[in-house]
């Protein structure tokens, strides 16, 4: 027997990760996973970033994956270490992000005995992972990790958790890493159904008022060029979903914003008037459809999605195409002839002009203005990471995304607290680009502990805290639907974020006046290291337009005129 292939379980894990081209891991050690940590120095290719909370590890690995297109990797120890990952895993699941979580478990003999720090993490994460594993034999480590990465990154990506008992991490065995794997019940790449492509091509040919509704799938399958080509070839306007933002240049003449609860009024109206919607890599989330029975009723629908279970789940479609976005779009491009839609484009330009996205002209410091300035000063080149709430919607509305893959935000889960570890993961994944975290004061306080990680690793992330002193989005609902009864949404005693930044060794800047905005942003960019700007903004600004939950375009509230705002 060749001695070289004898490894202990921990070494096998590291060897496997190297085979999968992993270069960064986010995590925190503990008893059950300690053997794995103790061999890390043998593998300098694996850069471990010690976060301050496992939720941070999961969100950072998630954002790393979104920023790079590679799987993100998180480590956590058994019990509370693993349960702290849960929010991050659920976030990755909702947004189809390839995340591989490797967790330590109590030793095999102790499983099922309620041993110290024993938690059934495979049971807990069953409904929030694409798949998960409890490794029960050392010899299986290689094939399970190979499968985990394969499942996480192919088809519709998603999180996979691999739980490894401590005694397996310590046990010696023969290491084998399979070259190929064949998972009987998992065949994600189905050939595109040519009949459906033909049917779709006919619908495109016949359509007078077509719209492409492009989602996250464009970014995941790297179909930027194909989206652009199809749109230009057939002169079809493009509307993005929130997660689809930065998949199509926003400064392109065929771009018409994003729809939904807080999307542009004109995008919603255009979808409502369309006679054909070509939905690509998106899943008709309720934040987009409102009442699905009344969503875009005049339009036929072509739905391209790689996950068959998404097709027909919410909306009845005329032509289902089960495929990744890139392949399906390529097929469509070769099957359709050039087209013009000049009348439709004139019509929708009129809609856009009549229902523009407004920026209130005021001397007060409002979040929308800050984001617009941020876009101008950074020339739209920054990677924007957000939290969840009003600031997220304003970021999506006013930071126009002209370049590829520039927005990283928690869509499906809407996980507040994503803004700090998300920025961490994005910056680690794309070290040469400028990362701006547009943070809510509420969300920031959920995970600001990762400022320590950011400072320690000298990551030059810039934070723009949109500090309205409120759980703003919830306050807005209370204002509009509960007669301004602000129950538990106003903060009394927000810490001084500038001093807080300084405590972490990070430059802090406070901005209270509109006139300070430009120079503060410029100073942050010029500073060689992380910076936090605390923007003390108008506290009761609302996000418009707004379609109330479960309603329709007809119920859309557009921005009130200045006089209407007290």
């Amino acid at each position: 027997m060749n001695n070289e292939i004898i490894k202990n379980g921990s070494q096998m894990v590291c060897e496997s990760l190297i085979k999968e081209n992993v270069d960064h891991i986010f995590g925190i050690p503990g008893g059950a996973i300690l053997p794995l940590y103790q061999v890390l120095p043998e593998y300098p290719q694996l850069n471990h970033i010690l976060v301050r909370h496992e939720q941070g590890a999961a969100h950072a690995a998630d954002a790393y994956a979104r920023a790079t297109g590679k799987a993100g990797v998180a480590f956590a120890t058994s019990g509370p270490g693993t349960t702290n990952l849960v929010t991050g895993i659920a976030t990755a699941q909702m947004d189809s992000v390839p995340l591989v979580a490797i967790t330590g478990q109590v030793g095999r003999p102790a499983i099922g005995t309620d041993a110290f720090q024993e938690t059934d993490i495979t049971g807990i994460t069953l409904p929030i992972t694409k798949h998960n594993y409890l490794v029960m034999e050392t010899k299986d480590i290689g094939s399970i990790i190979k499968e985990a990465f394969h499942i996480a990154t192919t088809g519709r990506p998603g999180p996979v958790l691999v739980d490894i008992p401590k005694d397996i991490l310590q046990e010696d065995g023969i290491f084998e890493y399979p070259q190929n794997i064949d998972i009987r019940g998992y065949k994600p790449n189905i050939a595109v159904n040519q009949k459906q492509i033909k049917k779709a091509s006919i619908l495109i040919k016949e359509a007078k008022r077509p719209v492409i509704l492009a989602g996250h799938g464009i970014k995941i399958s790297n179909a930027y060029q194909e989206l652009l080509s199809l749109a230009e070839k057939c002169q079809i306007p493009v509307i993005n979903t929130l997660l689809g933002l930065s998949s199509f240049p926003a400064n392109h003449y065929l771009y018409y914003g994003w729809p939904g609860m807080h999307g542009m009024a004109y995008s919603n109206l255009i979808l409502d008037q369309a006679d054909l919607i070509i939905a690509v890599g998106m899943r008709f989330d309720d934040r987009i459809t409102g009442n699905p029975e009344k969503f875009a009723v005049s339009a036929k629908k072509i739905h391209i999605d790689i996950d068959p279970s998404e097709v027909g789940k919410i909306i009845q479609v005329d032509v289902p195409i089960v495929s990744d976005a890139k392949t399906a779009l390529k097929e469509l491009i070769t099957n359709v002839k050039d087209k013009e839609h000049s009348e439709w484009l004139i019509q929708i330009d009129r809609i856009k002009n009549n229902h523009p996205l407004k920026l209130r002209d005021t001397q007060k410091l409002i979040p929308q203005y800050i984001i617009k300035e941020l876009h101008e000063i950074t020339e739209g080149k920054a990677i924007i990471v957000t939290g969840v709430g009003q600031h997220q919607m304003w970021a999506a509305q006013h930071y126009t995304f002209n370049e590829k893959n520039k927005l990283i935000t928690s869509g499906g889960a809407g996980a507040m607290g994503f803004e700090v570890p998300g920025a961490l993961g994005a910056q680690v994944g794309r070290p040469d680009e400028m990362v701006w975290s547009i943070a809510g004061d509420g969300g920031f306080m959920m995970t600001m502990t990762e400022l320590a990680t950011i400072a320690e690793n000298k990551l030059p992330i810039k934070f723009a805290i949109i500090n309205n002193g409120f759980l703003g989005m919830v306050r807005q609902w209370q204002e509009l639907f509960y007669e301004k009864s602000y129950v538990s949404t106003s903060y009394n005693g927000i810490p001084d974020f500038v001093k807080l930044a300084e405590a972490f060794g990070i430059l802090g800047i406070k901005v209270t006046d509109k006139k300070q905005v430009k120079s503060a942003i410029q100073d942050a960019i010029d500073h060689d290291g992380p910076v936090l700007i605390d923007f003390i903004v108008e506290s009761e600004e609302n996000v418009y337009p707004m379609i109330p939950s479960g309603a329709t375009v007809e119920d859309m509230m557009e921005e009130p005129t200045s006089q209407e705002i007290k």
Partner: protein
Amino acid sequence: MIKNNSQLETRIVTALVNDKPGVLNRITSMLRRRAFNIQSLAVGHSEIDNLSRLTVIVEGGDDIVEKLTKQLHKLIDVIKVNDVSDDNIVSRELALIKITSTPNTRNEIIQLVSIYRSKIVDVSANSIIIEATGDDQKIRALQDLLKNFGIIEVIRTGIIAMNREKINKRKEI
């Protein structure tokens, strides 16, 4: 499509799944999370090593069964899924029914059981256990008749279903 006594539309879906720890948990967890109404679920070894066969009776029409098959398929441990409701199938369920019996009622019970082509598998001083096989309707009918004697316990395996030979000549045995 089958209609049972309660007039709810139900469908039969069979699936070939990995025979590994936790697989049933994955399936039932999905069924619960996606709020499918399941009338019965039966699982056991198949003719293939390491694979089990599952029969699910779900309440609902075409749309529900389509969603169910897609969601089942999405599970990595599920290899193959078939909606066999409209196929030419044989479906059976096994029930054990324990009823009160006295020397006076024993003969009547034996008669009933033989009409229903069921079996008596245990006779004790005060009770009898009956083994019945058939489709849902037959078992319910028998159970209804036995009610008068006093049912002590009923246990049912859940329906299992199998396609007949695809060739024309089919014979009910």
